[in-house]
Each structure stands twice: as structure tokens, then as C-alpha cells.
């Protein structure tokens, strides 16, 4: 033990540190901290990102809706037996197509062509409805009409069998089939729809948008009308939203602010929707509903065309509660006419 000296004892020995040693240690510690700081500063990459984890961004659709009118109705209900006369009557009640479409407008018409079914089965937008709407839009002076949908099934087959290809050819409308380059990521603060691939190509030059939907039963969400019609603009594996179908459909009222929506209730698919398959599933209701508020239009369609209790249509209540439309169509400025 006699060989033990002071330096071997270390800090635990309780020995006092000399001024020289204290300054030495302080200097070393300060140099280490300064070195670490300098190294961190040198290594810092403010623009560093990891692909796939960057903040998601995407397009936001333009608002194609008109300013609300205090003069014209926002909802028109027309009854008749022929598509053209009835649609024309509904549009006249709304103030005429000229209220919505001006000379030179590029108009996107979004039909529901989800299936390769013939028109009689009422699972898709009827060719006579497209013909009538396109005619009115042309009369209003539109420079171009684009007809676009993204069916899950073969687009060419769906457009062909539904009879819309023939109408497009006959009236020189531009049919836009979805291609890989037609899609772009959409950014939305929806209840469930936040960031998703969207059939954007038709909207690049569009100045006005019209939704033209059949009124039909739907196996999952009770009804497919003008609000659900926008589902056909999503790309990818969109069926995964079926788990939250009422949320996603209500998000469409946020996603799309169309100029006009038209609900074709001339022949309504009352059961076995959305595909149908039998004429017995179809009931003639001889009604066209047109308006600027898709929630109001669908509320009328569900209660008066599908003849069901509006209380059960969750997605419409969600949209109403979020201020995206008015489910109480009776409270809106509306007009009912006979063609």
C-alpha cells in the first residue's frame, strides 16, 4: 500500500483537483461539445428527404360551381315520358342551360358507365340522356364536350354496350377513356379520401362540369345517384373504400363542385343494383331531377324515385352534416314541372 500515490486514486478518492487540471478538463469538454456541434452543423441536410415518406401533395380540383342564385331555383324536377323533352323542361325550370354554360366553354360530362350493360337494364347512364344533355350544352355555345368515366371493367366495352359510344360518335363528342397517363394524385381533406389517384385528364381544360347519373339501387350503399357517380373518377384499387363506403361517397361532395348535376329517373333500377340484369328490376318513374346541389338532388331521388326512407342513406346525411349540401330539398328553392 505504500506504493500507492495520489494520481492513482482517481476522482473517487475525494482528492481535490488542482487548478491546472480543472482548466485542462474544462477545455477538453468544451472542445468536445464544440466539435460535436460543428460536426452536426456540417452533416445537417435541410432538404434531405426519403422518397415515399415526403409530405403528400397533389392536385386540388377547381370549383366549377356557379355562385348561388337568389332568383333561379337550385333544384328542378321534371316529369315526362321522353328523355329530351323532360331534360329540357328541367333545365328550363332551372333557368336554361345558358345559365350554366357560356359560349366557348369546355364541358366535361361525367356519365355513370360502370358496367357493360345494355341501356334497357338501367345500370348505366342512358344514351338518350347523354344525347339530350349534349344537345342542350351545344345549343348554349360550348366549344367542346368531353365525356369521361373510369369504369372498373373494360372502358371500351362499357361505353359500347351502354350505347354511349354511338351517341358520342353521332354528336361528335370526345370520349375520353382512362389511360395510364390520364391520372394524377388528388389531394383532399376528406373524411377518408386524403390522397388518391384521380382521372384528371378530362379536367385539365374543362371550364364546366356536369354529372349525369342514373338513379339506381346499390348493394353496398343503398343507392347510386349523382354523388356516388364521382366514384368513377378514382383510379387504383378503389374497391378498398367499400369498407367505408358512406364516408367515401360523402367525400365526393367535397371533392367535386360541379356546375350542374342531372339525375336520370326515367327508368330506375329498383333492385339488384348496381348491376341489375333483369327488366323486372327496372321501374319507369318518368322523372328528371336537375340541380346545383347534388345532396338535394339525391335526397329527392332516394325518397321519391327509389321510394325509400331518406333516414337510412348515411352518406347523404354525412354530406349534409359537413355543410356540403342540403338534404332537405323541400327547403331549397325548387320547381316541379311537367314536360
Amino acid at each position: 500500500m505504500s506504493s500507492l500515490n495520489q494520481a492513482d486514486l482517481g476522482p473517487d478518492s475525494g482528492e481535490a483537483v488542482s487548478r491546472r487540471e480543472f482548466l485542462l478538463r474544462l477545455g477538453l469538454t468544451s472542445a468536445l461539445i464544440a466539435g460535436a456541434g460543428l460536426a452536426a452543423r456540417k452533416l445537417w441536410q435541410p432538404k434531405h428527404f426519403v422518397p415515399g415518406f415526403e409530405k403528400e401533395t397533389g392536385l386540388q380540383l377547381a370549383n366549377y360551381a356557379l355562385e348561388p342564385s337568389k332568383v333561379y331555383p337550385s333544384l328542378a324536377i321534371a316529369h315526362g315520358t321522353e328523355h329530351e323533352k323532360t331534360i329540357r323542361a328541367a333545365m328550363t325550370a332551372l333557368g336554361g342551360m345558358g345559365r350554366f354554360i357560356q359560349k366557348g366553354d369546355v364541358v366535361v360530362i361525367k356519365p355513370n358507365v360502370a358496367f357493360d350493360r345494355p341501356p334497357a337494364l338501367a345500370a348505366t347512364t342512358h344514351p338518350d340522356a347523354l344525347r339530350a344533355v349534349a344537345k342542350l350544352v351545344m345549343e348554349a355555345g360550348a366549344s367542346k364536350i368531353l365525356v369521361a368515366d373510369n369504369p372498373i371493367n373494360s372502358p371500351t366495352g362499357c361505353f359500347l354496350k351502354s350505347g354511349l359510344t354511338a351517341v358520342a360518335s353521332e354528336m361528335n363528342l370526345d370520349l375520353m377513356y382512362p389511360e395510364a397517363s390520364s391520372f394524377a394524385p388528388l389531394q383532399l381533406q376528406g373524411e377518408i379520401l386524403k390522397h388518391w389517384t384521380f382521372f384528371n385528364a378530362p379536367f385539365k381544360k374543362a371550364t364546366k362540369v356536369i354529372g349525369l347519373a342514373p338513379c339506381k339501387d346499390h348493394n353496398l350503399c343503398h343507392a347510386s345517384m349523382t354523388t356516388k357517380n364521382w366514384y368513377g373518377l378514382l383510379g387504383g384499387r378503389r374497391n378498398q373504400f367499400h369498407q367505408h363506403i358512406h364516408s367515401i361517397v360523402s367525400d365526393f361532395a367535397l371533392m367535386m363542385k360541379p356546375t350542374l348535376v342531372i339525375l336520370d329517373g326515367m327508368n330506375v333500377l329498383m333492385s339488384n343494383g348496381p348491376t341489375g340484369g333483369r327488366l323486372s328490376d327496372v321501374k319507369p318513374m318518368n322523372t328528371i331531377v336537375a340541380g346545383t346541389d347534388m345532396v338535394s338532388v339525391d335526397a329527392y331521388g332516394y325518397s321519391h324515385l327509389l321510394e325509400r326512407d331518406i333516414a337510412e342513406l348515411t352518406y347523404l346525411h354525412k354530406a349534409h352534416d359537413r355543410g356540403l349540401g342540403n338534404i332537405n330539398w323541400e327547403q331549397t328553392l325548387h320547381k316541379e314541372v311537367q314536360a
Partner: protein
Amino acid sequence: MANEKPPRAGNRKQFVRTQVPSVERAAAVLILLLLAGIGLAIAFKGRHFNPDLYTVRTDSLSATAAAVEGKSGTLREAAPAPVVADPAPAAETAPDASATPAAAPAAAGGEGEGGAEGAAAPTPAPTGEPLEIALPGLKPMSPTEFYNSDNLYEKIDGRAPAYQGFNVVALRCRSFSVTAVAGSFVDVYEYRFDSPVDAFGMYALERDPKGGPLDFAPDGYSGEMGYFFRQGAVYVQVMASDQKPETLALTRAIAQNRAQVLPADDQGLAGRRRLPAEGMIAGSVGYVADNAQGQSTLKDVFQAKYQAGGAELPFFIMVTAPDDAAKAWQSFQDFCARFGKAEVLPDVNGGRIFRAQLFGKWKVVYQRAGEVGGVFDAADAGQARIFVEKYLRGGTK
């Protein structure tokens, strides 16, 4: 006095190492060098970002991507199946469930199409037997499309869950143009299910109550624009594009063809076969898989409505093992006695019968060997008893 050691508690001795072996010193130096090296490597790597490091490997997603890209439209254009000009009907077979599924996926192609090298190439799409129908005046519009339960939504979208609920296995479908009528076509859908009972269940769910009976398929009906029937485990839909006479005639011919070609299989449908045809209200046949009449013992029950003696009588049949049939009958009687009034009637032709009034409605239920059945929810007890006794005597065909 500053160098004086403070007093220590107890007799503990301090551990002080006076000799550190050179090996230990070398190891310590090595560890320090290694740590410094790791630090330098991290610093170097951090300053030289490799963008490939976090890039999503699309090839690993090819299986899922293909299903999207490979929707039937893409498939149709990318990999058209050969169309047989004059196929022999004898060569036609029902789709093989093991071969049919997942047709669309990888035919979709995309980057790996055409046998691209490496693991990124999608697996070639399995397909089933093409749907060939050799009838004069009929021409295929497109190749046969194939779907399985997972990608059925690509064809029928939101309707798919209803079919999945009955264990659909596959769908093959094809469109045929009617050569005599420009623009007319006929769609043929063949949904293959897990069992004939499943196929019947889906068929019954979609049945048109106004449909007319078919002479070539017992579980079938015709509508104004199509024919719908179950054949074996397949639910067949043959739909015309319009009501033109030539189109409707070919639609019927196709339906008859499918009924002949598809193998008959009524496994699990014995109850359905025993439902008498006489007096049956068209389109009223239904199937209840479990808990029929609120009875856990009544499973795989077939029921239909009948017009008899001016009354409408719902009638059901369950076919099972004799012991199970006896238990079900007894259990049903006990239930009726507990919640209403039940009495045993005299046996008829080997069948034992009870009659019960429950919640204002009448039931007359029999059991004979492995069969339990009877009239339920009848307003007229007399007619219900007459109907059941007549059935047991074989008087109702």
C-alpha cells in the same frame, strides 16, 4: 491539510489497478478505433445519400399492381384469347375452378409482360376453358373473361360482395353478337360457386318473382330480356341487349345450350327436389341455410309458397339423417308448446304430425324418416292440415 485523505467508512479497501496488461490496452485502442471508424462511416454515408436505398421496389408490388392494370379491358387488348370459329360443343366443359381464378391479373402485363427476365416478371395469368357456344347466327364479340372471388369486383363492382356471401369461386363470361341484328348482343355469365346449394342461394336471392318457369332447368326462370338458372354449382345468366325477336330467340338457344353442357349436380338440394310443383307460386322458392323458423335444428331448409284451397300456404322441407329429423321435429314441437299451443295429430302414411298455434298463426309440421317439413305461418289451420296430409299420402306432385 488539503492533501489529507478524508476518513473512510468501514474497512473496505479501494480497488486500484496498478498493472494493465498490454493485450488489454491494445484491445481498448482497437475498440476506440472501431468506434471512430463507425462514426466516420456514418458521417460519410449521411453526406452521400443513395436515392435507391429507400425507393419503393415496384417489382415487389407487381402482384397487386397487375390486378389493377390487368382489369379485363387491359387483358382483352393485351392478351386476347384465340376465338374458335366453329367450336365443337362436345369440347366444352365447365370452367375448372382450379384453373379459372385470377385470370386478369398478370396478363395485364405492365413492365414484366412478355416473359421479362428476373423475378419482377408477373406470373402468367391462369385462364379457364373459353366459353365457346356454337350456334348459327352467333359470333363472339370478345375473348372469354375470367374472374375469381377476389377480383370479381372488376366485373360487377359493388355487386360482388353479394356473390361472395354465397362463396362464389369464379366467373367466366363472354359477349356474343347477333349477326342478323346490327348492334344486338347476348351476354353470358357463368358464376361458379362452392356448391350447388350456394349457387341456388344466390340464384334465389336475385330471382325475379314474375319470371316464367323454364322447361330445361328446374331452378330457373325467364325474364323479358334474359334467362337465369342454376345448373349444378353454376348460376347462369344469359341476357339479351334488347327485345328484338332474333336476339331473344338466340338468347333462349344459348340458355338451353348452357343447361345441356353444364353438368347437373343437385348435391345438398334434396329438399328442393322434394318440394311439390303442384300449386307452387312461381318464383317463391327460397333457401334458408341456418335457423329456419327460428329453430337451430332446422338447417338447409327449402321453402316455397303454395296456392291450395283458396289459401296461400308457406311450406318447408328439410332432408337430413332420420335421427336428426326426429330431434328437429321434437324440438320444434317443444318450442311451439312453450310459446303457444301444440297438439299431436294422428300419423299419416308413416309421418308423425303436430299442429300448433303460435302468435296467431298456424303450423302443421311432420317428420317422416329423414325428412321434416310442413306448413307454417298459415291463417287457415284446416287448409294447412289438408295440405300436409295430402303431401304425406303422395297426393301432391
